[in-house]
């Protein structure tokens, strides 16, 4: 059944809330009262319920099936976390009510910060960034602030070709020039090339933005040497923490020489993805960057953690570079992440990393004879990268292949990313999948590959066939953007004159 838009079913004289008209007051709006009536149709509660329930049914979800999106880490979202985040003591407190009335809230942030620092081997964490990319921005601002404080003004940030788009975008936002770093044939950073680049731009490098494990699903073996080379060039090592979930409890970024790393709480610590957000991106900082952490930050006080909100409260040695956002960050996400950490414990989180890596390798060995691994049959970390060589001459593209997965009941894997391989297909099963689930997925993928190789192109080119919508015309959408609903013109009802 097709579900109309609320504007097509709602009515201006209907409302799904019961409120009474206030009485006995003189409006004090000055000259600012609204002149025109707002045109927002309302729905009675039963209609609203049905509308959104029906809409939801057009969505794929982790709770309904495996979600093999490489680098996106679609793992199980425990409902305990949702329950905890809704405790009124967390959900119903205001960021600006007296600090004496939110001590537990501040303690929770402090406790989460402690877990993050211990797990990453760092000495500070900027909690407030609202998403991974916001965390990147925060980390790079701390780096810029540190350079400025040292009287330096380097202009270049090094970013590998395989990086997430947010990395170069973030660097550019701060006025940095992005210099790309090449990868070796094995999918990892070309350390010799990197050294040469560093030498070439001596004194003008602000830092490097590196993802580790990288977006090919590989751990950068030279990571410590890279960090040392960067540090030797008076630059900082920003690590994109998108893949931290592969190594929690197995290695600490701080021990690898990382100066700043954001942590996507949803990827590593199971806060729900929510169809696109809200996220949360705390940034852990090395000793060298710790003083520059933005407002607000926590300071150890005699009676527990203290929240420092303004520059007026700053003490010696604290040099916050500014503020990333109003208030204190994504409390709702903090509660969920801490709930997850407490549940797993340090032992459970280590096990989760191991299971994530094991599951990815299990998928790899299940598919590597039929699909193609760009970097050979070596172990991967938490995700396995295939390229599209195996589709050569089949007439089936990576996109077609992915869309055909939908008809089999699966969300497609990440496609065309990272850019370093042709027709990339990046599969991340996560630790949340059972062996039976992986077996079924592998069997399905094998069936699809063999079907493509047999030349059953229609199964792919027209896919998906069984989804709520067939393939959508994205070009049309971009060429003539329709970004909101407007009432259709009334049909022309000019009466035709008789005779």
């Amino acid at each position, binding site marked *: 059944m097709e579900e109309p838009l609320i504007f097509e079913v709602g009515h201006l004289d209907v*409302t799904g809330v019961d409120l009474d008209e206030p009485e006995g007051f003189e409006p004090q709006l000055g000259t600012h009262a609204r002149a025109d009536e707002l045109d927002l*149709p309302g729905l009675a509660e039963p209609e609203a319920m049905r509308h959104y329930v029906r809409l939801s049914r057009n969505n794929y979800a982790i709770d309904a099936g495996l979600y093999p999106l490489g680098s996106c880490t679609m793992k199980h979202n425990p409902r305990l976390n949702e329950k905890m985040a809704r405790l009124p003591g967390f959900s119903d*407190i205001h960021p600006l009510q007296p600090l004496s009335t939110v001590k537990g809230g501040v303690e929770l942030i402090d406790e989460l910060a402690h877990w993050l620092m211990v797990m990453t081997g760092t000495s500070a964490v900027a909690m407030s960034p609202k998403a991974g990319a916001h965390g990147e921005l925060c980390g790079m601002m701390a780096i810029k602030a540190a350079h400025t404080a040292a009287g330096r003004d380097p202009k270049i940030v090094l970013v590998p070709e395989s990086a997430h788009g947010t990395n170069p975008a973030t660097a550019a936002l701060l006025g940095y020039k992005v210099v790309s770093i090449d990868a070796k044939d094995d999918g990892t950073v070309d350390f010799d090339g990197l050294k040469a680049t560093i030498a070439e731009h001596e004194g003008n490098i602000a830092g490097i933005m590196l993802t580790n494990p990288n977006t090919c699903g590989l751990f950068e073996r030279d990571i410590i040497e890279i960090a040392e080379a960067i540090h030797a060039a008076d630059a900082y090592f920003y690590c994109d923490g998108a893949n931290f979930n592969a190594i929690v*409890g197995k290695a600490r970024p701080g021990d690898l020489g990382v100066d700043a790393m954001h942590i996507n709480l949803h990827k590593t610590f199971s806060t729900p993805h929510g169809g696109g957000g809200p996220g949360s991106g705390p940034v852990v900082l090395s000793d060298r960057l710790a003083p520059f952490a933005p407002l607000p930050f926590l300071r150890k006080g005699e009676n527990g953690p203290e929240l420092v909100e303004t520059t007026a409260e700053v003490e010696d040695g604290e040099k916050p570079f500014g503020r990333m956002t109003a208030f204190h960050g994504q409390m709702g996400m903090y509660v969920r992440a801490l709930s997850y950490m407490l549940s797993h414990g340090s032992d459970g989180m280590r096990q989760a990393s191991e299971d994530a890596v094991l599951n990815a390798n299990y998928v790899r060995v299940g598919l590597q004879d039929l699909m193609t691994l760009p970097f050979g049959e070596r172990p991967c970390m938490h995700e396995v990268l295939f390229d599209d060589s195996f589709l050569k001459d089949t007439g089936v593209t990576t996109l077609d292949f992915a869309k055909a997965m939908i008809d089999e009941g699966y969300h497609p894997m990440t496609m065309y990313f990272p850019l370093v391989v042709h027709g990339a297909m990046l599969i991340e099963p996560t630790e949340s999948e059972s062996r039976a689930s992986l077996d079924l997925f592998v069997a399905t993928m094998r069936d699809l590959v063999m079907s493509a190789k047999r030349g059953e192109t229609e199964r792919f080119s027209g896919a998906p066939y069984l989804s709520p919508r067939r393939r959508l015309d994205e070009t049309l959408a971009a060429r003539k953007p329709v970004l909101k609903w407007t009432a259709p013109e009334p049909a022309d009802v000019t009466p035709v004159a008789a005779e």
Partner: protein
Amino acid sequence: MRYLPLSDTDRADMLARVGVDSIDELFSDIPEKARLNEVLDLPRRAGELQVERHLSNLAAKNVPASTVPFFVGAGAYKHHVPATVDHLIQRSEFLTSYTPYQPEITQGTLQYLFEFQTQVARLTAMDVANASMYDGSTGTGEAVLMAHRVTKKKKAVLSGGLHPQYRAVVEGLSEMANDDVVSLPADPTGTEDILSQIDDETSCVVVQSPSFYGQLIDLKPIAEKAHQHKALLIAVFTEVVSLGLIEPPGAQGADIVVGEGQSIGNGLNFGGPYVGLFATKQKYVRQMPGRLCGETVDADGKRGFVLTLSTREQHIRRDKATSNICTNSGLCCLAFTIHLSLLGSKGLGQMARINHANAVKLKQELAAISGVDVLNSAYFNEFTVKLPKAAAGVVEALAEKGILAGVPVSRLEPGKAELEDLLVVASTEVNTDEDRAALAGALKEVLA
């Protein structure tokens, strides 16, 4: 561990299938000296009951808004959200779905984003809205950057009525990006002379109405002056419910409208997650940050929705992107859309009138207290009072009496003597006559 489906038997079998002897072989790329061979020194796994107890103990140290007379606003507001909203956003298909990059199986998310964009555009009286920002403050920072792209100028003029933390966000970002900012002094009464600050260098003027102090501001003359100098007017709000009652910024000439949407559908959550609303004129859409959802058709010709104009975005444009943003505030904007669908014009109007009525009644009660002056002439559900002594201490004293009275301006603008006695007080539909009487009574005692 309850979240991990693999049993030890599974693990052993799977390692064998993978062809390694131990799990550590799969981690052998980690340099040996950095490998953790021991479990980190953090608590071990815990059952649900233990986790609930631990977190409930922390939660119990806080005072929830619903449990006391509550008048705290200043950028985040306590409203009643229908139970339906929280129920629906917890549907698995919304909660645990990814960004809708595969539109064939995410029409649920895409359609509500389209509804959301339409609602925001109508609320603000603007041409187009995006699929939400992190929150109002970061949205304001992005709006300034967008204005710089549109105007190819770099100076932002910030009103003294802008929320101090919003100002800090803009200033920080501008400083880092080497852009210019002119920040006007705090302006509790809405009487600053911002027009004289606008010149040909000006990229944008950022004005909040209702202001941080609650004052309603006439945006039209500012828009006019800005446009004379080819600058944009960025209109900011922190209380979206006000748009149910007051003239929308789009009708006053704003070029970009940005604000906090938390009040509709979303709880206080100690400051986040919230949902930033962002709208602009059609002609600027390609300079807009953030996700956009657009209408199109599928292969069968059926109406459908997709994320569109993504050539603005970082995952396509990388260092040429309009912003580094790759998240919207998904579930929070779903909550916003559901709540607003329930309200409709009718409900939002009533809600806004109740808010205003409660603020007017509160103002009368407070203004009657000796030594208390209300500074605002025109306001919505919030206003600023000048107390006969430092507001911070008064607020603490009232908190001890179980009343959360508002935000002392000094909390956000410390060390400014002229602001020391100011208290920003908000009143919404949750406040009762008893709440107001309790505040007025207690305030009299504290000031006595």
